[in-house]
């Protein structure tokens, strides 16, 4: 069964304190890995799509990387407005085509 595990479940950082969120996956064949940001009471906002190991994408203070078994979302010098829940999802080859989501990492950045 395809699985996506995100860690940690929650992370508290001080403003400017860089860190990384992890998304590990067990799938039959990866087609794509997606990162979303979700604010309380709102729908997920798309951040990145990664398709192959070694691929990296950046947006402002965020950088996503992908290996054959996991992805990292690096947050450099975070600000309070980066506080949100970050969701990871994968799409797989073969079988039922659907996105499998992790439960998310809740990030809080204190000023």
């Amino acid at each position, binding site marked *: 069964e395809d699985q996506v595990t995100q860690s940690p479940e929650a992370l508290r950082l001080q403003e400017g304190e860089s860190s990384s969120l992890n998304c590990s996956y067990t799938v039959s064949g990866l087609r794509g890995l997606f990162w979303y940001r979700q604010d309380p009471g709102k*729908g997920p*906002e798309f951040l990145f799509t990664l398709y192959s190991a070694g691929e990296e994408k950046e947006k402002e203070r965020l950088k996503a990387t992908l290996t054959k078994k996991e992805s990292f979302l690096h947050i450099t010098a975070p600000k309070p407005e980066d506080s949100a829940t970050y969701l990871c*999802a994968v799409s797989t080859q073969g079988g039922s085509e659907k*996105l499998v989501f*992790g439960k998310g990492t809740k990030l809080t950045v204190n000023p």
Partner: protein
Amino acid sequence: SQTIHQWPATLVQPVGSPLSLECTVEGTSNPNLYWYRQAAGRGLQLLFYSVGIGQISSEVPQNLSASRPQDRQFILSSKKLLLSDSGFYLCAWSPGSFTDTQYFGPGTRLTVL
């Protein structure tokens, strides 16, 4: 640019009452459409998806149903709500297959009492 709308934003319904949630997409044609439910402490659960008008696939057996009467309209319904139907319902669209990026709407918070 593409925009996705959902309404209502919040809904409080008694057990046994009917449900109708609506989702519309603007700025694109023939999108794939999806209904998800997000419960506290759990990941997003895919409920239904549609690749075209009148074409609905169900992922989870339950008392919910979906319909797609128009190309860019997706409706989630129930004849009789259960307490367990409470949650945050999200509509999403993608330009093609599941492997394409999915873009989410603002969501509907449903509370069944």
